[in-house]
């Protein structure tokens, strides 16, 4: 009971700190703070259509967060998640471009989804393999792979996959309608992406909390030396965690192509991979909390879109709020640890 009250108190302090910082930034920029928050709220939860957009952003962010939970558990920094989304999207598009007019659309969709998962997983595997075999820090490997993926998608869109006549930032030609995920007219989102994301959350939570493999991942993240002595094959588990993370990110890429844009665009990942890293940190690496934090982050991102139109301020404010939340979380955690330490003495 007391512990719960303490947790709630700390969460409230975290939020208060983030709001205080953000408010100062808004005031410094010369905009009215309250009005800004109201606009973000209206822009995200103000209407059914807006809520649909929020869920649209929530899906890839949550999938990436699910994947990151595995890599964080074992102590790996999978910054390459952004590129893994891109590679998933590219792999899915590649399947759709195969000329198979006679093939069953359902079969094609399944093949594309599989290809996307494999595409993301392979991209993550490279970073993991470099880390294990060559000692290249996974942060730099992942980052390099992000840039390579970005170069690849731009090359495809402007090169071999360009629209006949016009090659532009607007992306490749639209997919034929039979390759679009079914659409719920109510929210303008696909029930399949939504169901897939919920399944991913449950799978991740069960895997990490209730299975032996999940426990081993945690053991290796907490104390690699001890795990080594228990003869857990750390390298194999690192690769497994990377494959899972990349697979989920690739799936997010598949949903972006088939459920949202219906084509391959240069900004297909929309930085959701990077945001997912923040989501997981704010939720203190919990699989049950992450989806909620992701929802809040999605609200901020979608809500901020109308700031430039309504108030003539830049939409990057969303990122400032998100960053402030992570920093406040870290500060409050440190305060908590300091308090515990003092009680012990």
């Amino acid at each position, binding site marked *: 009971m007391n512990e719960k009250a303490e947790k709630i108190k700390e969460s409230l302090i975290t939020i208060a700190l983030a709001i205080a910082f953000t408010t100062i930034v808004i005031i*410094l920029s010369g905009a009215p703070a309250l009005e800004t928050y109201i606009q973000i709220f209206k822009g995200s939860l103000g209407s059914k259509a807006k809520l649909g957009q929020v869920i649209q952003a929530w899906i890839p962010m949550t999938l990436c967060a699910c994947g990151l939970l595995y890599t964080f558990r074992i102590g790996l920094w999978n910054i390459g998640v952004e590129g893994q989304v891109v590679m998933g999207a590219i792999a899915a598009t590649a399947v759709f471009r195969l000329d198979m007019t006679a093939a069953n659309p359902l079969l094609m969709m399944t093949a594309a989804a599989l290809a996307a998962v494999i595409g993301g997983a392979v991209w993550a595997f490279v970073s993991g393999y470099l880390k294990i075999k060559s*000692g290249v820090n996974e942060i730099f490997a992942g980052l390099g792979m992000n840039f390579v993926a970005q170069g690849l998608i731009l090359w495809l869109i402007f*090169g071999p996959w360009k629209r006949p006549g016009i090659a532009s930032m607007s992306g490749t030609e639209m997919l034929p309608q039979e390759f679009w995920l079914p659409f719920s007219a109510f929210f303008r989102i696909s029930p399949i992406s939504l169901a897939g994301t919920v399944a991913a959350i449950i799978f991740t939570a069960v895997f990490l909390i209730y299975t032996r493999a999940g426990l081993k991942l945690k053991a290796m993240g907490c104390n690699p030396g001890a795990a080594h002595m228990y003869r857990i094959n750390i390298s194999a588990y690192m690769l497994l965690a990377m494959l899972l993370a990349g697979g989920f990110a690739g799936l997010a890429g598949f949903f972006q192509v088939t459920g949202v844009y219906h084509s391959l665009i240069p900004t297909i990942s929309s930085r959701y991979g990077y945001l997912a890293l*923040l989501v997981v*940190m704010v939720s203190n690496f919990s699989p049950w909390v992450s989806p909620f934090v992701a929802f809040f982050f999605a609200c901020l991102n979608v809500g901020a879109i109308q700031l430039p139109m309504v108030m003539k301020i830049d939409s990057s404010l969303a*990122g400032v709020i*998100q960053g402030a939340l992570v*920093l406040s979380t870290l500060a409050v955690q*440190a305060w908590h640890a300091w308090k515990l330490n003092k009680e012990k003495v």
Partner: protein
Amino acid sequence: MNSFDIVILLSMVVAGAAPVVLAAIGETITEKAGVINLSLDGGILLSAMVAFAVASTTGSIFAGFAAAALAGAAVSIVVAFFSVYLGQSQVAVGFVLALMTRDLAYFIGSPFSRIQGPQAPHLPLPFLKDIPFIGDVLFNHNVTVYLGLFSIFVVWMFIYKTRPGLKLRAVGEEPRAALVRGFDPRKIQLLCSAAGGIFTGLAGASFSLAVKAGWGQPQGCEGTGWIALALVIFGGWNPVKAAAGAYFFSLLQVLGIQFQGWFPGIPAQVFQVAPFPLMIFTLIIINLPKNEAISAWAEDRPVLKKLLSKLSGDAPTSLGKPYKPDIY
């Protein structure tokens, strides 16, 4: 540039490298003292914005550079404070700040978007510029280039030839031993991070006031911070080697622009990302000597052995592991 002129090419390399040199040298100081400042990429962007905003408001280039240095120092002080004093993961804090300061820069800086602003003047150095070849390559630039060249020398001197430099290295290697010798490792780490941040700030100012003059989204310096972080590893935590890496990277970029002219069918974006995979390959090569099989194989080949030992550089022992005083 249609005719392939080596002097023009090299002088382009030197001019373009200035901000990367500054950022890589700053990060070397920070990491040498045991702190990884992963926020570099956003920090450069934020200070680029601050430099441009201050310089165009006050009309003074100098004020722009000074304000940017302060902004850079402020960001790295946050990283050092959270990791060194609050015991939080350096990588986590640095990464968050890398994203957050980027958004902060675009948010606060949006009124300064796409306006004309002052630019660091072209300043050929008297006498030195008349040296054949070298003069045109090195001494016929704006102030940021000289700042970079000068910093390489000064920081190398500082780290390896002075007493405070010795303290800095001691803290990065053995913070407890440093404490026994009577200096506070945490204070030194905070100071070194701030010093590194000043260089980050100067790097940002070099972008918005010289190399890619102006402000807007995207500014064009995104990604530089990550390159600088990789260059510190490439340089084996030695400022001179890190700077050499920066010139090498700049050469790749300039060649990328060259190749673009030769292969017009390939989109420009491909050449822009080309240096990044090359960076990964370099990191793989740097790590080769640490591979037992390869070092055993090189054992009987003296030339190769020497080459490998030249390439490798050891990270400061306590890098990324903040020193906690309450353990003892």
